[in-house]
């Protein structure tokens, strides 16, 4: 049995969280795998051989999109001072809501809207418990994650009847930048959400650094008490931050189910929400740093997938560990002290 067949078998039989990572995306076809095979078997390291790893880049960009969306979402929440451990759960429920919305409407855009709504609803739970009621943000974030796992599993069975995965639905459109020669080659065909994610990063950078709203968000994250004494409604701005993170991580989930695949697989987020949190720390809560870190992780994930295509004797599971191991190493070794918003994680109560 070929590796590829083994992999798809694995997904069918287990619906396992790591198996979903191994899902072959649109951009890597048999042809690119062959090219890579040639590259690795070729003894001479020539420029011509090097060009055969070019298909890795479109895949890396594609893999980075859910991280960009979720991490930027996390940025909105954390800059206002609320740790959002629940990104993973919000992504997962977004992924399922995207499929349900598309399944019934036959329109992936409505699915996307449903995914955003699902993310916002879970974010609302986090906001009410941690912002209004002052419950520990980590605890309510974990609750959101557990709730999302149970809820998506239950709904998946209730609506589609099967265990593990949903039927296939129509995907969100893909866009290629044909007129621009080099860039279109580098990017390949990307989902429309990729372009949205890049624009989002630019808009977020401007919003955080150059607008009154951004200033207000940062003030609430730095010192909510003083922010309140300057006349800022800390509760309102923290609600905004948390709900934005819900909307964007719901969208990140929809990318997994409506752009990367075309179906929902149980626990398909496979820890990406937590990687997004690590990305936030690595990117020091700055939009463009986050974009770079996401591209790096996307590359790691793409590499893991690519290396599986080659007949190596390493078990696929080890390659799938690659992004996670990289997270640990980079977090532990490469970066030193990072400075989060000063009052991140501290609840604020007007006595």
């Amino acid at each position, binding site marked *: 049995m070929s590796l590829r067949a083994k992999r798809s078998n694995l997904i069918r039989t287990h619906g396992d969280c790591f198996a979903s990572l191994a899902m072959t995306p649109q951009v890597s076809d048999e042809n690119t795998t062959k090219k890579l095979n040639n590259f690795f078997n070729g003894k001479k390291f020539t420029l011509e051989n090097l060009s055969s790893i070019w298909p890795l880049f479109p895949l890396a960009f594609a893999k980075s999109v859910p991280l960009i969306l979720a991490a930027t979402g996390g940025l909105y929440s954390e800059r206002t001072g609320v740790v959002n451990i629940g990104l993973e759960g919000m992504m997962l429920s977004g992924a399922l809501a995207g499929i349900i919305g598309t399944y019934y409407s036959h329109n992936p855009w409505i699915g996307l809207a449903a995914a955003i709504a699902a993310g916002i609803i879970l974010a609302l739970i986090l906001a009410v418990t941690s912002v209004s009621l002052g419950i520990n943000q980590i605890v309510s974030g974990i609750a959101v994650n557990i709730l999302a796992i149970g809820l998506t599993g239950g709904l998946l069975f209730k609506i589609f009847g099967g265990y593990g995965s949903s039927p296939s639905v129509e995907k969100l459109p893909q866009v290629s930048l044909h007129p621009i020669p080099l860039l279109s080659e580098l990017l390949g065909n990307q989902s429309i959400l990729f372009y949205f994610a890049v624009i989002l990063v630019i808009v977020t950078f401007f919003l955080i650094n150059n607008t009154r709203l951004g200033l207000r968000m940062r003030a609430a994250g*730095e010192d909510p008490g003083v922010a309140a004494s300057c006349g800022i409604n800390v509760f309102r701005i923290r609600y905004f931050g948390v709900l934005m993170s819900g909307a964007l991580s719901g969208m990140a989930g929809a990318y997994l189910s409506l752009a990367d695949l075309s179906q929902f697989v149980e626990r398909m987020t496979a820890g990406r929400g937590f990687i997004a949190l690590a990305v936030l720390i690595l990117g020091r809560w700055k939009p463009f740093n986050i974009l770079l870190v996401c591209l790096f992780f996307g590359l790691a994930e793409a590499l893991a997938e690519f290396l599986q295509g080659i007949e190596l004797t390493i078990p696929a599971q080890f390659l799938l560990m690659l992004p996670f191991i990289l997270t640990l190493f980079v977090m532990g070794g490469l970066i030193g002290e990072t400075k989060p918003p000063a009052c991140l994680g501290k609840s604020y109560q007007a006595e």
Partner: protein
Amino acid sequence: MVIKNNGIKKLPLLEINNLITYYGLIQILKEISLRVEEGEIVCLLGSNGAGKSTTMKSILGLVRAHSGEINFRGQRIDNLSAAQIVAAGIATVPESRRIFPRLSVEENLQIGAYIHKASLPSLQPQIEQIYNLFPRLKERRRQAGGTLSGGEQQMLAIGRALMAKPKLLLMDEPSMGLSPALVDKIFEIIQQINRSGTAILLVEQNAHMALSIARRGYVLQTGSLVAHGTGDELLHSEEIRSAYLGE
């Protein structure tokens, strides 16, 4: 008592009547009544835990009063939100120089004017005025607030409060932890701000300094007002000095 000004009775700028505040089940303020007239410097004295900061927070709406009334320019404010109270014209310099450490000096100042809903560039002339008052801040405008020295942070906290263009400025222990020379400088600036027409309610442990610039003073002890008088009266009363001001 209403101060007569050219024979016309004037409403006090700030008037607190029988304010009672609890933290949970513990009563912090026991029927506090005080007032601040327009253009006055009034100081609120007392040792640690006397209820000075709680009084400040009650005025600003950061702590809800259990009962009593707070009026500002004839309008009841004890049921308003902190944002509405700041918008009404009360700004604060919080205890222990709480500035936003990761925001730049200029951003700290911009936050101060938040309630005026002006666009960030349009705040520039007002920021320049603050720089005229504190030239050190201009030199450090792009620096993170947390990198400033203690004295500079206090200047920044005062500048930030002034950005709200307040009628009444609440100052919570502005001299705390500063060197004597800096304390002199800060008190000089407080008088300068006052001369430009802003009333100031000053909470201080440094009674001598505070009374020397204040027109009137109140002495708080374990949540009750125990003495009230002009700055001179309080400063020269043996009894008050020994009993409450710890001299």
